[in-house]
């Protein structure tokens, strides 16, 4: 660990012992979330999400192509993330690296495994022609918790996306076939303290991270632990509880932003 993070670590740990965080939040409190949809006219669907100073833009493009041989009657979904150098002094230009790939895969899994998009309804001709959905995640400003910002922006973009049937002379445009979305909440732990929605400073000193996606009923739909630290069973239960509670509020906000 270099000098700056270790100084930050001392400072944030000292604050945490007094039950405080650097920006005045409670341990289980999110930063202010803003969701704006329809921000890119060329995209089939798009959304810009701000969580505190973190800003993520997601655009959905669609095309007609061949299905995978193992699922000939299902549409295709691909997710890519770019940590463009615009967003942070530490991001470099070039092909996506480990962290961008993990981010894209975690978001992809959240969308795919929860079956938000009804891919079987996106088949045009079995084995021949299906809709392909491209989810492109653009990080604009990195101040921590890219996972939740990217997931939320992806959902908001999907929910406002229109299948561009007209452009492909396949009839009228229509909304994507979608089901109830899961909402993901990320927590990190440092010096024995667990905090929800980590800022960049908190992320930099984090020993371990856990992302929990929960659905409308409060059931768990996906999890991902990251980094080389560990949690106790009690900590995990607390994180799940906080994720369900916050997930509920975030879901309300998502519905409001997409006019549902």
């Amino acid at each position, binding site marked *: 660990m270099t000098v700056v993070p270790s100084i930050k670590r001392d400072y944030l740990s000292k604050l945490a012992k007094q039950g405080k965080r650097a920006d005045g939040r409670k341990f289980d409190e999110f930063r202010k979330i803003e969701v704006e949809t329809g*921000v*890119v*006219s*060329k*995209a089939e669907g*798009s959304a810009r999400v701000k969580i505190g*100073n973190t*800003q993520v*833009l997601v*655009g*959905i*493009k669609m*095309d007609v192509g061949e299905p995978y041989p193992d699922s000939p009657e299902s549409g295709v979904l691909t997710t*890519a993330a*770019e940590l*463009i*150098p*615009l*967003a*942070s*002094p530490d991001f470099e*230009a*070039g*092909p*996506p690296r480990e962290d961008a790939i993990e981010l894209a895969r975690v978001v992809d899994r959240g969308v795919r495994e929860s079956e938000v998009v009804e891919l079987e309804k996106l088949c045009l001709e079995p084995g021949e022609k299906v809709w392909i959905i*491209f989810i*492109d995640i*653009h990080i*604009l*400003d*990195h*101040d921590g918790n890219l996972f939740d910002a990217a997931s939320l922006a992806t959902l908001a973009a999907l929910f406002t996306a229109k299948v561009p049937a007209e452009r492909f002379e396949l009839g009228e445009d229509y909304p994507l076939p979608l089901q109830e979305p899961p909402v993901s909440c990320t927590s990190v732990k440092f010096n024995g303290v667990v905090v929800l929605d980590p800022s960049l400073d908190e992320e930099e000193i984090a020993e371990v991270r856990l992302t929990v996606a929960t659905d409308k009923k409060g059931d768990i739909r996906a999890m991902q632990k990251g980094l080389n630290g560990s949690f106790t069973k009690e900590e995990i239960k607390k994180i799940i509880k906080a994720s369900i509670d916050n997930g509920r509020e975030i879901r309300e906000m998502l519905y409001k932003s997409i006019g549902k």
Partner: protein
Amino acid sequence: MKSEVKLIDNDGKRLDGRKPDELRKIKIEAGVLHRADGSCYLEWGGNKILAAVYGPREAIPRHTQDPLKAIVNARYNMAAFSVEDRKRPGPDRRSREISKVISEALEKIVLTEKFPRATIDVNIEVLDAEAGTRCAGLTAAGVALADAGIPMKDIPVACAAGKIEGQIVLDLGKEEDNLGDADLPVAIAPRNGEILLLQMDGHLTLEEFDRTLDMAINGCHIVSDLQKKAIMEKYQSVLEVE
């Protein structure tokens, strides 16, 4: 080139209702990003551009350093979802060329000799594209550089003019760019009129070129005022808070 679409109607109005010497609608906002040292969000017609400046900071790898001055490293990038058919992420030949000409234009205006061995990184992201992205990108970069407090001789600004159906017009729109006869993007330093970027494709007579260039430069001056207004707005509100 003869086109099916009529780009100018009998009253001299263009497809989007503009007069020949009228710009598309432009909106500029300075300082929109938290991490960047300077930033700018710009809407120019259907273009949406975000520019961020980092630096001056040490140029890495070291062999890229210039012992006498800073390098200006502009990177123009289009989001995959910014165009009709999804663009593959990452640089292609077009975006590399645009990055190069913008870097060179900015290098002329930044006081690079103040920061030996440093780099000033200018990231231009095209989020939504509709003709004229290089001019919009360079204009956004100018505001972002000013917002970052980079010492410059002037705030660079760009605008294009061109020829459609034999007539010289300012700031080509999407169909005009595709179906028109010529496009001439120009960047200038507005205070002394130095030309920092100049490209042309199409066909112009010498006389037409003169008129087109004058019109583009006029456009630059109008956009320049909007740039300055955006910077004033940002810093005025800072002063008011204090």
